[in-house]
């Protein structure tokens, strides 16, 4: 009877399905990357290992321009989103409630509740008219639109951190006659820094990931990496597309890996 003490954590078939799940997730990505290293022109016919398509992509002006646009856009949008979200998080936490708190909360979460395609259409209607009226067609529209839908993602980790934060240190600073700003700069901000960084990275990735809104709002010559990829995909499936996709994949691996190492040190 004693050996009937079975493991409660065992669920028959779970391991098999889990391994299948990981295989399903990774097989397409591995094949994508493998294809990008294929010397040959025809996808699926292996003609030897080469970096040919990466070289080709790097010489491709349109790709380099798109990469630059993506980088500038994601950096600016994530910065605006993180700064405004930090301020908003400071406003909505550590309070016994104030007039309009609910309204602020709903507003800050609104962009994630609306499907992306709807937001894209809605922005297109408005921004097409502003473009016509002002004559300005720069990157500003994309920056501000990206900031708007990145704010909730930056707001979440910062708010969570503030809510879990110990107030005694700030009280101590105040007891020692630190001004409100001084206490914020010397006590709150350093404690909040990891969450702000996490919020920034989240916002950066969300902006970099966006296809639909960028595709609808961009003026000619404002392709981002995803919209460039989408445009190329419409024409022809080439190994260069796979090389560019692999580069984007590499970026996410680096960002996830980086944040993983950052948080691992903490625990």
């Amino acid at each position, binding site marked *: 009877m004693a050996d009937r003490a079975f493991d409660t954590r065992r669920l028959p078939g779970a391991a098999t399905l889990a391994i299948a799940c990981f295989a399903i997730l990774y097989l397409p990505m591995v094949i994508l990357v493998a294809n990008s290293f294929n010397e040959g022109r025809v996808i699926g016919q292996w003609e030897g290992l080469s970096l040919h398509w990466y070289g080709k992509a790097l010489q491709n002006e349109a790709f380099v321009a798109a990469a630059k646009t993506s980088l500038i856009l994601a950096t600016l949008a994530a910065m605006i989103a993180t700064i405004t979200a930090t301020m908003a998080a400071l406003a909505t936490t550590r309070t016994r409630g104030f007039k309009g708190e609910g309204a602020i909360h709903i507003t800050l979460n609104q*962009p994630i509740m609306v499907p*992306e395609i709807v937001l894209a*259409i809605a922005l297109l209607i408005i921004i097409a008219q502003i473009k016509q009226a002002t004559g300005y067609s720069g990157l500003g529209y994309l920056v501000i639109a990206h900031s708007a839908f990145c*704010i909730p993602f930056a707001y979440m980790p910062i708010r969570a951190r503030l809510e879990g934060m110990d107030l005694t240190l700030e009280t101590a600073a105040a007891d020692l006659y630190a001004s409100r700003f001084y206490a914020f700069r010397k006590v709150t901000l350093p404690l909040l820094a990891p969450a702000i960084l996490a919020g920034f990275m989240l916002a950066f990735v969300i902006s970099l990931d966006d296809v639909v809104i960028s595709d609808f709002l961009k003026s000619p010559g404002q392709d981002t990496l995803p919209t460039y990829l989408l445009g190329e995909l419409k024409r022809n499936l080439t190994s260069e597309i796979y090389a560019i996709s692999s580069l984007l994949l590499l970026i996410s691996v680096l960002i996830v890996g980086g944040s*993983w190492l950052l948080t691992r040190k903490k625990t």
Partner: protein
Amino acid sequence: MDAQAQEIRSDTLRRWGLALPAVTIITLFSILPLVVVVIYSFLAPGDFGGVRWQLSVEGWFSVLFERDIFDDTVTLSDAHLTILGRSVALSLATTVITLILGVPTAWFIATRPARQRAFWLFLITIPFWTNLLVRTIAVQEMIRSEGVFNNLFLSVGLIDAPIQMMFTNFAVLVGMAYVFLPLMVLPVYAAIEKFDFRLAEASYDLYASRLYCLRKVILPLVRPGIIAGSILVFVPSLGAYVTPRIMGGGKSMMLGNLIEMQFGQGRNWPLGAALSLTLTALVLVALVWYTRLTAGKRRG
């Protein structure tokens, strides 16, 4: 007393001041555009896209019905109903597939020793953070006519000609299940990880069968995670645009693609606006249902 009221007032003002930049950006670039969509849905379509400033419910009417050009008879719009039905059906199917694959995976990760857990979780977060378009391209390579599966089947001699899998409901389903799978695993994992397995042990000690324990002890406590995961998969599936566009093309459109079409070739902006709001309403219904379900749990 007055001083205290003053203090509350200045605190409220200070907090509003801090929140103002974020609130302004979202109001101007996310809420206001939606208000314009609501207005546009009640206007008449312009001849070359855009709208004519004339009150009309034709846009809303066309979401479900169509009028015969010759004799004005009103019939249900087959094309729109098909797309609406497909969007809901494929989103539900995507949710079910990700549940079947995602829940055991979450279980598997949550029951690993703590040190290994981080590694498996890391493997889920990489696709989670990888560009949606890139992942769609990756899954497309598997099932397109000259893709991995067809090449494999051809070389083995299983088939003589490539199976046309792209641009079908199947392709859209495969694509969405692939790209949204990580969204299911993470919340379910969080729920299982919190589960105290001593409760399961206790139920076994009391002669509960494995199935009974799963149903009566484990499932009720893990359910919030499963519901959260289902919502996280269902909502973006319903509004999906990029994945159905690549996997389904013009043949297997979803609501998102139909909306885009009205602002492109279709040139019927009011209809596009009404469809957008229909989609938003469907999403909100799912979200409200979710909050009520979880709020009910907490109270009960």
